[in-house]
């Protein structure tokens, strides 16, 4: 039964009843309701438990400021944690749960925390759980278990999200009166406009007002204007859309909660001009037990009555320090509620609205304050004291009034969040008692209530002004636009009341909450000051003030004022805190957008990929490449397949798809000069048709990349890079050519994708190529190790390199990628008589490790010089090259640097885990000195025992010493330091 639903009025559709569930019980609301308004309509006042003290909490607000009604929406993979019930549109079948309270929100075991709440004061977690530090992990589990808000879904999100990039001349944030005027001006001038509002419909605060604009109800005016704005071709109107981030160069982000196949959309907007018209957020009043269910903001009470036709209480006390709350009293009155009293802290009372209240027979108590609330799960009454305006000391709360609703207003704070995010400061306005936007630092204008304009007439005027300013700055003609007529009431100014004096000392009285979501009270802030905190940023972190998902939208300013009072400073002296994106929480789904699953990252496949797949290859990811890892025969695991592949290659013939190698074509009259500076070896001395193993160093002397490079002509070279380093190396070469040596005429072209590379390795590799009528003589004389020839193979033009990464007689065939698959098939067919065996990256790694060849990025980590790798022979003494100077830095000359060594487990059977730390002495006291680590480790089928490579401090002088390899979860393994070359140390096989 919607017992609190009014018979008529509201912007709900009574012809569309909607069923929903909350904490397991069924309820009914209407289309147009929010979850919050529907719950209130059903008289559900206890919505949640508070974060730390588990106090019962109800709905306090009606929008983004709501700190209590943070609910779990939906079930299973679709569930949304931590949604504000005030901003969840009611839908048929909606399921919602309280996020805190065990076993249930009505009977909550954790509520015992409230009884002992004095123990849970400011900095409680810091003080209680810091020592002993060894127990921190345990504490952390306990804290996270009892705290936390809702539950994240455990399954992948099945819904779709998307990102849209957009540009506009003028972005208007907020479609209240000011935003509508600005957007109207911009639209009439022909500007490209985006108007975004977080509500389900335009209008903002007008949706809860009975104001008259141009002689008709404000909501009519809104409808007319919104319709006109939507009619312009270059205008995009986004409802249910929160502008949540304002970044450099007028880049703003918007989340749109859509009603289609896309669940949410993130707009990334680059705007030439921005108009910020997000309105203002009402402040609470800080009296004892101000968090009890039934204590609500005046703006929310008006909104529930007028917009949703819900009467949130039958007998209300209205407590205020300004005129705005009188409107709520009048709304309550005309909706049939009894107003027990308007308690106005000002002795002057209110202006025009005060007269209207009196005319309606509502009792007004100027010069009074509400000091305390009775009732636990629902307000039952208030205590009231007369007040002379003194903020110090205690008051005599002699008046008791029974009520089921306390409507409060502490004034309004402009929503300066986006202005602050844009990099600008906010300024304290003493006459308005709030922070207003300071000078803009980006191309933006603030307008309306968000700019400290309270009356409707001022808002409309300020919106039109901001729109015109933005248009002028964007170079548009002034539009034909008149500010519509609206009333402006005589208002008595707000009198600041940041903390309501109580009948007890402020440190002893029942809790006066500043931050409802984090249970931060006045006493907590005062305690922080007594403990020496002075800076607002420190106090925030110590007391958690403003650290909830609402970022303290409600009571932040009150908290700063309480801090200022305790410090004996003014509010502007205490300063404002910095607002950071997002304005309201943003779901992970919409952050990721389309970048999930297969669209997360592009996949690169070689031209031979199809064959690998149909041959049952297991794949591994190398960067974006999917490379064959090994080719298991039926029943084989990784180890068995790799052992077979290794043996077959060394015995007869293996074939590897090496197409992922980075390939760069280098041409130009200065190619030699350039490459001399890049590589450590003497490039100029290379003859045409010869190859060299080359390494590139960073300027710090550390190995950056390696690969075979070949001289194809006087002014032409072909470079290969590691698979993962291809893009970075090209960028590196380009950067030197462009920034340091622009005088060199050199042209770089990436040909990684254009050419595929097939490596054939093993004693029968030459026979295989010969069999395919290779057009060049493959003998040692004509085609020695480390040389290159253009050739034809089975009639296909190829570039043939005699290079070896396995230590075997081997060739690499570069072929136009369009011919790669047929050529691979041809090689496989012709190789059948040699038992040709395709192998993947794992066998490639084993074969190269047996030869002691390093893999940059696996055996090196950016702190390894070529000297550490025993590659002195590659370092030219006759020229300068990048990184050379660093190799003579004292640190690079240390003899105790980590050096590349081989490692053999002493039992000759244990494969040492890669990444294992190497230590010398098992009984050494902690911290145990680390000698180095194991970088590569495999079972070598060819040698019949495991082998490993590692980096060991002063390793070369430790030959034959025994060290211990120790990895997490393993027993230490005794390992002997040996030469890193395990196989064919005299290189007889590759030169065969």
């Amino acid at each position: 039964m919607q017992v609190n639903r009014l018979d008529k009025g509201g912007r709900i559709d009574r012809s569309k009843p909607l069923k929903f569930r909350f904490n397991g019980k069924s309820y009914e609301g209407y289309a147009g309701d929010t979850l919050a308004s529907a719950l209130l309509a059903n008289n559900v006042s206890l919505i949640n438990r508070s974060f730390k003290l588990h106090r019962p909490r109800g709905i306090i607000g009606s929008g983004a400021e709501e700190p209590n009604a943070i609910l779990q929406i939906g079930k299973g993979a679709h569930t949304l944690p931590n949604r504000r019930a005030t901003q969840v549109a009611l839908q048929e079948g909606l399921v919602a749960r309280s996020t805190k309270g065990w076993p249930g929100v009505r009977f909550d075991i954790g509520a015992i925390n409230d009884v002992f709440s004095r123990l849970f004061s400011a900095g409680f977690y810091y003080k209680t759980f810091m020592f002993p530090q060894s127990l921190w992990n345990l504490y952390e589990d306990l804290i996270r278990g009892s705290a936390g808000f809702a539950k994240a879904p455990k399954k992948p999100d099945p819904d779709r999200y998307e990102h849209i990039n957009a540009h506009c001349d003028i972005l208007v944030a907020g479609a209240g009166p000011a935003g509508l005027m600005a957007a109207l001006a911009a639209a009439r001038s022909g500007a490209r406009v985006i108007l975004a509002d977080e509500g389900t419909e335009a209008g903002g605060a007008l949706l809860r007002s009975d104001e008259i604009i141009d002689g008709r109800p404000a909501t009519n005016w809104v409808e007319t204007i919104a319709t006109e704005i939507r009619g312009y071709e270059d205008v995009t109107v986004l409802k249910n859309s929160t502008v949540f981030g304002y970044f450099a160069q007028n880049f703003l982000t918007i989340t749109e909660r859509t009603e289609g196949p896309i669940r949410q959309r993130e707009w990334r907007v680059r705007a030439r001009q921005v108009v910020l018209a997000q309105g203002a957020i009402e402040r609470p009043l800080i009296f004892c037990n101000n968090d009890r269910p039934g204590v609500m903001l005046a703006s929310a009470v008006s909104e529930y009555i007028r917009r949703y036709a819900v009467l949130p209480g039958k007998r209300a006390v209205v407590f205020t320090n300004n005129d705005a709350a009188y409107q709520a009293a009048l709304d309550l009155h005309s909706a049939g509620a009894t107003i027990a009293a308007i308690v106005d802290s000002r002795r002057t009372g209110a202006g025009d609205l005060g007269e209207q209240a009196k005319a309606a027979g509502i009792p007004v108590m100027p010069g009074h304050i509400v000091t305390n609330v009775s009732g636990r799960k629902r307000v039952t009454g208030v205590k009231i004291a007369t007040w002379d305006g003194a903020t110090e000391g205690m008051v005599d709360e002699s008046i008791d009034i029974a009520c089921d609703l306390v409507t409060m207003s502490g004034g309004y704070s402009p929503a300066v969040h986006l202005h602050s995010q844009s990099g600008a400061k906010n300024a304290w306005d003493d006459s308005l008692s709030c922070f207003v936007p300071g000078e803009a630092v980006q191309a933006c204008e603030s307008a309306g209530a968000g700019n400290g304009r309270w009356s409707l007439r001022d808002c409309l005027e300020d919106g039109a002004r901001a729109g015109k300013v933005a248009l002028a700055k964007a170079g548009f003609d002034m539009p034909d636009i008149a500010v519509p007529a609206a009333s402006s009431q005589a208002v008595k100014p707000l009198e600041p009341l940041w903390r309501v004096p109580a009948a007890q000392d402020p440190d002893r009285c029942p809790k006066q909450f500043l931050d409802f979501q984090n249970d931060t009270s006045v006493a907590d802030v005062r305690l922080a000051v007594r403990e020496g905190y002075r800076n607002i940023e420190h106090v925030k972190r110590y007391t958690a003030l403003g650290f909830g998902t609402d970022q303290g939208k409600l009571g932040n300013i009150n908290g700063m004022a309480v801090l200022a009072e305790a410090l004996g400073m003014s509010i502007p002296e205490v300063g404002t805190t910095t607002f950071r994106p997002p304005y309201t929480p943003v779901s992970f789904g919409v952050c990721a957008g389309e970048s999930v699953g297969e669209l997360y990252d592009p996949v690169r496949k070689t031209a031979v990929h199809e064959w690998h797949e149909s041959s049952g290859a297991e794949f591994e990811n190398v960067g974006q490449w999917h490379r064959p890892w090994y080719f298991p025969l039926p029943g084989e695991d990784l180890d068995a397949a790799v052992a077979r592949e290794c043996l077959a290659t060394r015995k007869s013939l293996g074939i590897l798809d090496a197409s992922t190698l980075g390939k760069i074509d280098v041409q130009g009259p200065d190619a030699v000069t350039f490459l001399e500076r890049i590589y450590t070896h003497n490039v100029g001395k290379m003859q045409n048709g010869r190859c060299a193993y080359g390494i590139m160093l960073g300027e710090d002397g550390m190995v950056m990349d390696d690969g075979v490079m070949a001289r194809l002509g006087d002014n032409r070279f072909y470079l290969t890079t590691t698979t993962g380093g291809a893009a970075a190396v090209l960028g590196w070469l380009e950067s030197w050519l462009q920034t340091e040596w622009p005088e060199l005429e050199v042209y770089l072209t990436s040909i990684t994708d254009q050419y595929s590379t097939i490596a054939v390795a093993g004693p029968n590799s030459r026979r295989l190529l010969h069999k395919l009528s290779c057009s060049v003589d493959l003998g040692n004389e004509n085609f020695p190790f480390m040389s290159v020839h253009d050739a034809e193979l089975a009639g296909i033009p190829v570039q043939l390199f005699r290079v070896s990464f396995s230590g075997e007689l081997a060739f690499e065939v570069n072929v136009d990628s369009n011919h790669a698959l047929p050529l691979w098939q041809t090689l496989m067919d012709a190789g059948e008589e040699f038992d040709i065996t395709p192998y993947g990256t794992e066998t490639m790694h084993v074969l190269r490790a047996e030869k002691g060849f390093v893999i940059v990025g696996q055996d090196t980590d950016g702190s390894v010089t070529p000297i550490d790798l025993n590659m002195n022979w590659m370092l030219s003494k006759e020229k300068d090259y990048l990184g050379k100077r660093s190799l003579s830095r004292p640190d690079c000359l240390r003899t105790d640097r980590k050096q590349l060594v081989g490692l053999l487990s002493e039992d000759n059977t244990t494969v040492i885990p890669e990444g294992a730390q190497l230590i010398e002495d098992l009984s050494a006291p902690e911290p145990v000195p680390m000698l180095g680590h194991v970088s590569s480790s495999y079972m070598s089928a060819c040698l019949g025992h495991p082998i490993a490579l590692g980096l060991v401090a002063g390793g070369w002088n430790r030959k034959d010493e025994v060290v211990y390899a120790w990895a997490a979860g393993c027993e230490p393994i005794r390992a002997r330091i040996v030469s890193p070359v395990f196989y064919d140390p005299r290189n007889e096989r590759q030169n065969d």
Partner: protein
Amino acid sequence: MFLIECPWCGERAETEFSYGGEGGITRPAEPDKLSDAEWANYLFMRTNPRGAHQELWNHAQGCRRWFGVERDTVTYHISRSYVLGDGVKD
């Protein structure tokens, strides 16, 4: 996300660019003649200013040109983009 002006392509979103560190650092012509301290100064020391910062940016997803940018490290305001060296577009 910054809006960066490539001197060749115009204003583009930051995602098209890669950052190359502080600009205006010239590689010593003869590194051999430098003391360890001088070399280390070239190699490691950066001004890291609070305020105007000369930076190198590369239009990596566009024309792949390197160019200079003057950016305020406090406000993120980009005051200019410029062609390196003689300032002439080739």
